[in-house]
């Protein structure tokens, strides 16, 4: 225990330097997003429920990265919640497989208004390389109305943030 503590103190921080506030792209986008959320509900808080409708999980890795110490999306007012009933935004990834079609519909049905659906990744936006397969329905908009799309296979966390920003800006106008 003590030797471990001593070692922690001796080693110090060896991870790469955290980005300076207001300098990098992430910070700028994040601050813009924070302002946009404030104007959207006057609530400065955006709860996201993510639905994996049969994705390759690449999108999920990137979304998880939003919460890590580097991106730290919590400080912009984003949070991921456990139930669609708690959510403001549904993010959907994957080319809606036939098995997940019902799940997606019910999740959308249970999200209280005002709500927004964002398709994340090429699979969700167009069906991607799976489009036309007998096992998938295709793009998310074939199942539920989609408000915005974030392209990329997978989109990086920064792209996701920018996509969220664009979607909120669009919803306000």
């Amino acid at each position: 225990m003590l030797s471990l503590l001593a070692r922690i103190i001796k080693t110090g921080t060896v991870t790469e330097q955290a980005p300076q506030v207001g300098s990098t792209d992430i910070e700028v986008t994040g601050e813009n997003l924070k302002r946009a959320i404030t104007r959207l509900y006057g609530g400065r808080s955006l709860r996201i429920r993510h639905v994996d409708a049969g994705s390759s999980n690449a999108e999920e890795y990137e979304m998880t990265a939003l919460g890590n110490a580097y991106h730290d999306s919590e400080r912009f007012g984003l949070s991921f919640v456990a139930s669609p009933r708690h959510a403001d935004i549904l993010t959907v990834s994957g080319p809606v497989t036939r098995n997940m079609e019902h799940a997606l519909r019910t999740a959308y049905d249970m999200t209280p208004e005002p709500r927004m659906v964002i398709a994340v990744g090429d699979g969700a936006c167009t069906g991607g390389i799976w489009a036309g397969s007998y096992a998938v329905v295709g793009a998310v908009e074939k199942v539920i109305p989609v408000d915005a799309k974030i392209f990329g296979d997978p989109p990086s966390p920064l792209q996701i943030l920018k996509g969220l920003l664009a979607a909120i800006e669009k919803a306000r106008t």
Partner: protein
Amino acid sequence: MDPLLISRLFLFALATPAFAALLGLLLRRVSWSNTLTQVLFALSGLVGLGAVALLALEMFAGSLSSLQIGGLGVLQPLGVPFLGIIYAGVLLTSFYSIAALAKYKEIYVLPWLNVASALFLIGMQAVVLAPSVLTFLLAWELMSIAAYFLVIADRTEDSLRAGFLYFVMTHLGFLALAAGLLILSGGNPLLSWAELAQGAATLGALPLSLAFALLFAGFGSKAGLVPLHQWLPYAHPQAPSGSSALLSGVMLKVAVFGFLQSLTFFPSLLFPWMLVVLLLGLVSAFFGALHAAVENDAKRLLAWSSIENMGLIFAGIALYFLTSGTAALAPLAPLFALFVMLHILNHFLFKSGLFMAAGVIQSATHTRDLDSLGGLARRWPLFSGVVLALSLAAAALPPLGTFFGEWALVQALALGLGAGDPASRFTALLVLSSVALVGGLAIFAFVKFFSLVFLGRARTEAAEHAGALSWILATPVAICALLSLGVGLVAFPLISGIPVGKLFGAEVVVAPGAGIDPTLVALILAAPALALWLITRVLRTKIRITDTWDCGAPLTPRMQYTSTGFAAPIRFFFRTLLGARREIITTPVVASNPWVTKKHLDWQIHSIWEVWLYKPLGHGIVRVAHSVRRLQSGVVQFYLLLVLLTLILTLFIAL
């Protein structure tokens, strides 16, 4: 008021049930005979209640200390509240039985069932009124036998088995009572209570102890105290629900009355025996609460809870006598007395109400298995509110009456941590822990009871298509709930307002630290109201009805938690005390392939008392009987030898 008039009212209340039952028997071909009988029962209850109220007023005014009821009996002040409970119980349950029994005409032979009920009612009243040993024992036996016929009323195999167990246990209890009272009376069954008490004062320590043990065993077996409780959870639920309410809500109180009355014969010697009563009371309360928490049968759950509450009441009585005898602890005794009184009343109210509610549910869904109920709150919103109030009362939560009774108990125990010698302080600590654990388990049991019956979706077709609710059935239940709530609303100012010192003959600080600010109450009530106003009027929140969140796999009612599943954690935490037995029976589907199998889980909870006490005892008795049988050789000379030996032995003893 003229004492003669009051005693005539009591006589009327005592005689009417017999008259009603006879009338019902004579008119058994008439369709309204049951209604007539029950209305007359209710009338006798009403008149009795009036008489009790009049007598209580006289006694409070101090103009009357006891009442001679004709030539039949004497009513002492102790009996008055118990008679009140009997009459209130009769009034509520007979009103309920008008409609409840009409639904079961094919199952019960109503005229004869009503005869049993009438004898039961008369027996209970006679126990309270009995002036002498013999009348008391006769009344007790009448009550017990009549109760036996109530238990086996539907003549199913389960009922007969439960009835047999009850019959055996209650007669063992009767023997103990008779033996204990005869020891005290010096063998003379015709002594009145006053003469008995005089005689008992001259007895030595050993006969007194023996008598106390026998009487405690007798009354304890009726009240369902561990280890003589095993019959209660089987027998009480088998009776028709109105009678179950009387058995659990009222008859158990009569046992408490008998115990309290017999305590007056033991001026000395009480101290060590009260420790035994305290211990057995707490053990009963714990096992009752634990089994109630894991029980799946609605009515049996209520019966287990009766054992719990009886345990608490006996523990309270023991604590009263333990503290009142010591100078340092005497100020606490009134609080324990207050608890016992309030709890007797509260337990009567919520248990009668819940048993009748269970009857309503059973008559509408034809099951009392918690695993196959559910979703009734949407069908019967008002009735579910009534049962919720009763369940909260049974769980001893504020603001229901039971909470304030138990409040007096825990408060007195906490005060006990700081008074008396070290031994009594640590005893108070242990008792407080047990009471808290029992309270926690009781909350668990009744939250389970309410939510499995009323919340969520119906788990079976039967619950799905539950019929309409008859208001005649629901009204007595609602009255119980309202009274329970009323006790809660009245009890608190009463506890702080009444000079308890005057009531119980000792000075005491009642509920110290209980001051509640009116602004506080206003704030607590205002905040949710404000929130409601905000949501409905200001925000105008729209509500959209959807399915339950299912993660994509459609839910069926069978996927909800069952009672078995709900209690799984408690069963696991207390597994060593429950004696659960589970067995997975695997049968292969295809004979040639051992891998494809059908699995069947056989799972049961035994009482550990049954496993460790009853079964070995039963086996022991059988073994002894086997060895005694060798005497029955069939040779006449041998029998003559035995007779001779007995004669010689008798001569030795006599000389």
